[in-house]
């Protein structure tokens, strides 16, 4: 039996709203199938199943805001016995933190404070329905004593807690000392455009503040002669029909991916006080969203793709990022982020690492600059590549080796 939980799709995500189930009870799912659509602070995301089996229970309802790690459905894996259906609300399903998907899934946020209802660190047994009611009534489930199976918090427990609080108010009693804001917020404002933008800014700010607080950044930059790459690209695009043409950004992404093979310690995630190198290279590409904000979906196995394939994937993820149809794995899997602000006229990017990644590569605008070749000053198109990296994982020497590798790779664009 497998639990389908609300996944974490980046360090800035704490919850999501179930928009709709893409499967129904009894449907067979294969690992990778889209099983649900979830709205996050940034975009609507199609959530993939991590299991193969049959949908046995759907525990969450469309419209519910669900914290990361909450069990949303039960999938009976092939070869296992069916279990009696959970009859909410008398027997709410367990809530548990999502297990990080090795090796590249970001870790869940820190568990809530331990209370009587927490049976073990990070494990709070409460159904989505009870959690929703708690939110509506302003009750923090972490301070509710569960009376359901295994100490699970039921709808009655939430209601009882709310009633008791009301009685304390009437009697002039004290509010619980713990804040009441750790539960989900009301759904009412989720679809409002302006509010959504504000919340996106808040989530980005939270992730970036965490990054700057926890990650000892160091920054390096180098100027790369793009003459060969631009000439090669121009000639290559003459051969290609308009539908198959390449953007120069694809060369940069591929060069980063191949350079990571030479400096693999930058292709890692920071988990539990250690860097874990990823065997796969999934470059996240920063995409600005029409309504503001940004998102950085992964192009899986970036280093193994041809430039044409990479271009198709790049176009696809940009289109779907802006249309709100990204897949969960595309948000949870990046092992490094590449951002390019050249089109905005920026020459140098000083990026903030997106946790739990340990590096970010920025590219600026391609500009014509005087350049010395064999003693002659000539005009060349150049780009500034910058590296923001985590000093807990690498130092400037390895960062420099990495930037040099990108430079070398871009001098032989035909080999990318």
């Amino acid at each position, binding site marked *: 039996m497998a639990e389908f939980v609300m996944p974490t799709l980046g360090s800035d995500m704490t919850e999501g709203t179930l928009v709709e189930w893409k499967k129904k009870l009894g449907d067979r799912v294969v690992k990778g199938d889209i099983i649900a659509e979830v709205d996050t602070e940034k975009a609507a995301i199609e959530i993939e199943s991590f299991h193969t089996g049959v949908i046995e229970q759907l525990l969450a309802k469309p419209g519910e805001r669900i914290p990361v790690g909450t069990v949303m459905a039960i999938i009976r894996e092939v070869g296992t016995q069916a279990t009696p259906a959970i009859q909410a609300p008398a027997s709410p399903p367990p809530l548990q933190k999502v297990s990080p998907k090795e090796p590249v899934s970001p870790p869940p946020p820190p568990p809530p404070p331990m209370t009587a209802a927490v049976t073990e660190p990070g494990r709070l047994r409460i159904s989505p329905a009870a959690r929703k009611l708690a939110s509506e009534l302003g009750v923090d489930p972490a301070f509710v004593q569960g009376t359901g199976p295994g100490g699970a918090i039921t709808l009655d427990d939430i209601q009882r807690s709310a009633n008791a609080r009301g009685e304390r108010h009437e009697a002039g009693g004290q509010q619980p000392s713990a804040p009441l804001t750790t539960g989900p917020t009301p759904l009412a404002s989720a679809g409002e455009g302006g509010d959504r933008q504000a919340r996106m800014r808040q989530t980005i700010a939270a992730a970036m503040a965490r990054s700057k607080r926890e990650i000892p950044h160091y920054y390096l930059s180098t100027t790369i002669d793009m003459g060969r790459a631009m000439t090669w690209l121009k000639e290559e695009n*003459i051969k290609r029909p308009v*539908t198959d043409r390449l953007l120069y950004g694809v060369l940069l992404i591929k060069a980063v991916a191949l350079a990571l093979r030479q400096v693999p310690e930058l292709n890692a995630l920071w988990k539990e006080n250690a860097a874990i190198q990823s065997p796969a290279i999934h470059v996240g590409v920063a995409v600005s969203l029409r309504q503001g904000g940004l998102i950085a979906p992964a192009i899986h196995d970036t280093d193994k793709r041809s430039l044409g394939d990479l271009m198709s994937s790049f*176009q696809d993820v940009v289109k779907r990022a802006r249309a709100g149809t990204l897949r969960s794995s595309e948000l949870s899997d990046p092992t490094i982020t590449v951002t390019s602000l050249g089109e905005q006229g920026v020459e140098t990017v000083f990026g903030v690492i997106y946790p739990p990644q340990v590096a970010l590569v920025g590219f600026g605008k391609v500009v014509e600059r005087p350049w010395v070749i064999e003693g002659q000053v000539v005009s060349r198109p150049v780009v500034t590549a910058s590296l923001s990296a985590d000093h807990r994982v690498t130092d400037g020497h390895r960062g420099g080796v990495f930037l040099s590798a990108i430079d070398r790779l871009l001098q032989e664009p035909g080999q990318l």
Partner: protein
Amino acid sequence: MNIPLTSDEIRQTVLRLLGEVAPEADLTALKPGVGFRDQLDIDSMDFLNFVILIHKTFGLEIPEADYPKYATLNGCVEQLSDKRAT
């Protein structure tokens, strides 16, 4: 495919394609002689997608070297009118 024949039909078709690429853009305020990228929040990916749509809609192969000619509404109408005439 319905191939537009008049300048106005070409103009309307180009605006429709632009709207597909940048659905949030207010095209009613678009200045026909000013570059799209100077007025709209579109990037090189958007522009490439726009050129691809022109290619598919009008059945024309557009060399990369000609991209600048399609950078304004007036430029698009002029280019597509010329291509239609040849």
